[in-house]
């Protein structure tokens, strides 16, 4: 199978993920969108590694997974803190730090 198909799939996944981040108000859903975009990036990294017959992409995918795990920890903590403070996880409501 042509590995370019994986790249195209990754693009579609990335588009879906970014659409979720940009369009949904629910912080958890937006967070899932971010995960989806990270997965798309991982998929394209692995696909490019296969295309170029090198392991660099694979290694970078592992790094991304580690960063994503850390991000989930921080992100979920923020969401919980925001929910405790405002009884809501809408992304549009908290704008106290605006310029």
């Amino acid at each position, binding site marked *: 199978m042509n590995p370019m198909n994986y790249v195209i799939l990754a693009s579609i996944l990335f588009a879906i993920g970014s659409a979720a*981040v*940009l369009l949904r108000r629910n912080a958890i859903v937006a967070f899932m969108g971010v995960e989806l975009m990270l997965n798309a990036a991982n998929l394209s990294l692995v696909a490019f590694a296969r295309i170029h017959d090198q392991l660099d992409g694979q290694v970078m995918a592992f790094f991304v997974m580690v960063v994503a795990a850390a991000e989930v920890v921080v992100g979920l903590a923020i969401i919980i803190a925001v929910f405790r403070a405002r009884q809501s996880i809408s992304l549009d409501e908290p704008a106290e*730090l605006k310029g």
Partner: protein
Amino acid sequence: MLSVTWLLIAVPLASALVLLLAGRRADAYGHWVGVGASAAAFVVGLIAFVQMLGLPGEERATSVHLFSWIPGAELNLDAGLLVDPLSMTFVLLITFVGTLIHVYSVAYMEHDPDRRRFFAYLNLFVAAMLLLVLADSFLLLFVGWEGVGLASYLLIGFWNQRNEYATAANKAFIANRIGDIGLIIAMGLMFSAFGAVDFATVFDAAPEATAAQLTAIGLMLLLAACGKSAQFPLQSWLGDAMAGPTPVSALIHAATMVTAGVYLIVRSAPIFNGAPDAQVVVALVGAVTLILGALIGMAKDDLKKALAASTMSQIGYMMLAAGLGPIGYAFAIFHLVTHGFFKAGMFLGAGSVMHAMNDQVNMRRFGALRGAMVVTWVTFGLGWLAILGLPPFSGFYSKDKIIEAAFVGEGWQPWVLGGAALVGAGLTAFYMSRLFFMTFHGKARWTDDQHPHESPLLMTVPMIILAVGSAFLGLILASGDRFTHWLEPVTGHVEHHEPVLPVPVLIGATLVLVIAGVVLAWLKYGRRDVAQEAPTGSLAAITARNDFFQDSVNRAALQRPGQHLTRTLVYLDATVVDGAVNKQARGWAGLGEASRRLQNGQVRSYAATMLVGLVIVALIIVVGGL
């Protein structure tokens, strides 16, 4: 003794400070402290003078180092005093005449509640004037120069509850400041040319400097002298300065401050000797002022203002002499000394008249005071004879020498300068006789409430002493050229020059003009009745009465353009400079306001921004083929 010459300045200064700080507590005795300080300065000066007389001529100049004033790598300046025949002449004149005026003021200011403050200012003035003449550098001289400016401002505006008097004080102060700019620029030029501003270095280096440098310095010194000495075109303040108490007029406007300009020119002789062009300008300024002052004096009905115009005119004689170079320096100072006596005497006489006439100064309301005030009449009369220049009174010996010296030279100069000096003598005779006859002779034109009476002894004794000086000082100093020889260490020895006309002819012509002036004045103001109201007069009389419209000229030529210039500058500053700054600031503020909107706190809009940025970067990479 010379090492304590600093006491000359310190004693009156300390007295001024004590009187000012002590306040009302010293009201009872303050005036005697002031008199004592001035008299003490005179005694110190006299002792130093006697010591100086014991030395041979070339050793009479002594520098007294006081303290290191401005130590620096480039400019090293010590504060020091220069005691030489020239400064000693001034010290004696200032302290002697000054002390007499102090004594006179005790009685004259008796009913003034602020008499103590008046004496503090007088002492301050004397201290500043002594510093001016004793300084051994232009910078220290400048301190005294400003000091007398301040003291004269305080004294002219002494009765500053009257608005016009306060204005007169301001006018004198501002006109003097214009002159001071000249002195400051001159010092700057000296520093650039010689790297120093003390007399010794500057005068030693002067012969090596170029004529252009010396001319520039000389002209700036002349500007300074014009301001202080009320010379054309800065003379307009002197008449108004008569607003101050009369002893002030006698002290400042006859014997000391206005003569400082002449002192400056004579002291700077080595500079002017190398700048013939500047010398001609000095002489011309003197000649113009002497005629102008005389013409103003002819038209004034105010006793003190007529005397002020006369001072201006006589200082014109001194400037003329100082502009003639070495042949005139000694005569300028000689005339300055005799003038200090007879003009101070006449001012005190005028004060005595005012004292008797309820402070009336309009001469048209005087007349026939001879009988009521015999002492004042005699002492004023001696001053009058002295200023006329009739032998054997003081003025003859000094003024006649100036007229002779003015006729020395080549080309047009002796005729113009000498002619002005000669005509000035005739004019002086006319206006001084007019003043004398209108005040003391003719019919009484007093108002009903006036009861003239002689002044108390404290006033008449100083007048008598000054009158004796007016009568005989010239003769004493002129015999055997005593005064000229005394000044020789400073002004240099001068070979005799022949005037373009024979000397007896000049003396004769002067005397004829003087007598003609007196006779004319007698016919017009002595024998005939004087109108109590001034006649409208011819255009010339109106012009002279209004000081040649000097105030209007100044206003139109200097004040108005200055005001317009500043207004334009203010407008430009507000619109162009401030406008540019403010517009720019507003632009940045707008930009900040716009970028503030981006920081809306919305997570999703931030994410969108990031996405847009990412797409743009990706497009650049793909399309740009990077």
